[in-house]
């Protein structure tokens, strides 16, 4: 049997490029107005800004593919792609709304109760709501189905007990979508028995403790649940059946532009520091990096086109994330090598060093978050018929 990998070339339609101009103009205005600065000190890693997220919401750029009745714009997946990549490259402070827009909202639309949809989705679209994702636990990371934090049935709802870790943004989050054990796994299916819930973070019995990262930043948290009560209508999808819901949502998460552009600023600063007339080594290095990121982007845009057409390109999406995250992780090392002979003292050099140091330190997470390289390669191997 032959393995067909499909990546049809896709040219973004004119409405996307028009939207791109609007987004760039908006970002330029906001930088001018001082809402954010597109550099390391301004929070290059997607900082948290209530003001910025509300302005983005007012533009209709959050939940833009969602139904209008929930506050969305019913615009295309490709238009959303353009907004995402422009924000990413500008290092815009999207942390407040990004997870809600990319993952949590779509899960709620697909599996949430009508009351939850009507309550939460319009507020996400306004840029008011921050979501966290509660998957990992002290005893389960990549192996999601080993989760042991319990949701026990009680009158009108569920009581949650246990601990989630590495929970990004939990200290800002209004809600968390978490995976909780509602039944023991069965002999036939070890994935059975887990249920997804929307957790209101104001619920009594929830404590958020900071876990500082190696850069000194506070993004990770430990979230402890002690008899935290979840009403029945906060269940997402099927009780005990979360495993059926887990994979389709990840195609969105895996193939987006944020999966290879997270350290893109290093390439921009490298071009700046090497100047308009680089030597042969510098020119070749830049040329290869540009070719690599161009190919990744074309591949990612192609997957966006497939999602747009209603397909579920699970293997293709996993490939984008595998190849893309390895590229963005290695970029700081390549840039460091190529800049070794650049002029030692210049304003550009200082800026390059600062960006490089930051990217080098955050690089390890890139092949871990949202599905490790090892997990992705397992998915690809399954797609190839090896498992």
């Amino acid at each position, binding site marked *: 049997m032959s393995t067909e990998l499909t990546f049809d070339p896709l040219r973004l339609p004119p409405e996307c490029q028009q939207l791109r101009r609007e987004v760039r103009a908006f970002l330029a205005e906001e930088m001018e107005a001082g809402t954010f600065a597109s550099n390391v000190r301004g929070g290059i890693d997607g900082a948290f800004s209530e003001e910025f997220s509300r302005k983005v919401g007012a533009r209709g750029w959050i939940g833009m593919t969602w139904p209008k009745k929930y506050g969305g714009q019913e615009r295309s997946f490709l238009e959303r792609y353009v907004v995402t990549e422009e924000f990413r490259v500008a290092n815009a402070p999207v942390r407040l709304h990004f997870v809600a827009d990319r993952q949590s909202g779509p899960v709620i639309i697909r599996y949430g109760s009508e009351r939850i949809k009507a309550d939460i989705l319009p507020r996400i679209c306004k840029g008011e709501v921050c979501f966290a994702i509660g998957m990992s636990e002290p005893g389960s990371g990549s192996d999601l189905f080993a989760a042991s934090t319990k949701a026990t049935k009680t009158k009108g709802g569920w009581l949650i007990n246990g601990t989630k870790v590495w929970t990004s943004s939990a200290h800002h989050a209004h809600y968390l979508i978490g995976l909780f054990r509602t039944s023991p796994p069965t002999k036939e299916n070890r994935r059975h028995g887990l249920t997804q819930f929307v957790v209101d973070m104001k619920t009594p019995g929830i404590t958020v403790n900071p876990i500082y990262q190696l850069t000194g930043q506070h993004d990770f948290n430990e979230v402890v649940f002690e008899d935290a009560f979840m009403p029945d209508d906060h269940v997402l999808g099927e009780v005990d059946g979360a495993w059926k819901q887990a994979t389709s949502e990840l195609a969105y998460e895996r193939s987006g532009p944020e999966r290879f552009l997270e350290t893109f600023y290093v390439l921009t600063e490298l071009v700046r520091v090497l100047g308009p007339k680089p030597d042969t080594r510098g020119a070749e290095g830049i*040329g290869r990096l540009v070719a690599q990121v161009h*190919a990744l982007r074309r591949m990612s845009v192609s997957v966006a086109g497939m999602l747009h057409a209603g397909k579920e390109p699970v293997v293709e999406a996993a490939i984008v994330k595998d190849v893309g995250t390895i590229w963005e992780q290695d970029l700081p090392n390549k840039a460091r090598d190529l800049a070794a002979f650049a002029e030692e003292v210049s304003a550009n050099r200082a800026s390059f060093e600062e960006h490089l140091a930051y990217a080098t330190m955050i690089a390890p997470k890139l092949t871990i978050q949202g599905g490790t390289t090892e997990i*992705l*390669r397992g998915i690809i191997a399954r797609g190839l018929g090896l498992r």
Partner: protein
Amino acid sequence: MEDTNPVVDAATSILRDLADPQTVNRAKDNAWHGPAWAALEEAGLTLAWVPEKLGGGGVELGDGFAVLRQVGRFAVAVPLAETLLAGWLLARAGIPSPKGAMACGPAREGDRLVLAPNGRLSGTARAIPFAGDAKHLALLARRESGGAAVVLIETAQARLSDGRSMAGDPLNAVTFEGARPVAVKDAPVGFDGDSLMLMGAAARSLQMAGALEAILDLAVAYANERVAFERPIAKFQAVQHNLARLAGETAVAVAAAGSAADAIANAQSFDEAVFLEVASAKIRVGEAATEGAAIAHQVLGAIGFTQEHVLHRFTRRLWAWRDDFGNESRWAVRLGNLVASKSADGLWPMLAAR
């Protein structure tokens, strides 16, 4: 690209019947070349890119590129890609294509062929793929008086080195000393050696993408069949991860080459957007060829290193095709210089233009 397409289907069916890599690899000689070529020519595929009024098939550029991907998938060892390119080049200047195999050049950056005012051709093209198997050559030359010209000439008018590529296909240095062409016409305005290099690089990118698809299939099938330590080696995680990487490199190659082909097929000229697409494709697909061939050989072990096994028909071509129409390093220097000349903040808008 997977949609059924009569042109691609015709090519695939002929290649499967008359140029199957397994069969060809077992053959003692090249006797299969004749029937395979005759069938391709009969089906109009060799001159697919030549307009009907110039004696060709008048096929869309995109369909021709899709055929080139099949050329890679079958590791084709007859000058189908070369004749396609040659016919396309001749058609740029309105020169009708002759029957029979053609080769096309120059295919190395910096090679110069010069046309004297009396119409005689001189100079050396260092490495023209399949020149030794071609009856005619389609060439881009400079007029001594200035300007680019397209030249059709009989191969017999040239002195050829007896070189072979790593794949064993003819790869000849071609020298002219006052040779007399069959036809000479001015190249269209704006068409120069760069345009030919871009078209050739796109063609080779498609061929390499196809060959990577083929070695991915071979390696996956082998891993599922080959038993070691009492299970198929496909069940070992280390092997799975190697194959996942091969799939990744293949995917990048398919996406980059397909994007470059689409860019050329829809462009008015060989402009900067086409340059970005094609240079990126040739660089990245060339890198994928290097990585991919290494992984496939690792998975197939000793059997893949033999003449008996078909793998080498693909990997030797992957290695060789990297060098035709500009290798990765040469394209990278040019692309890097273009990016540097634009300022750092111009990089993203250039990438996001499509």
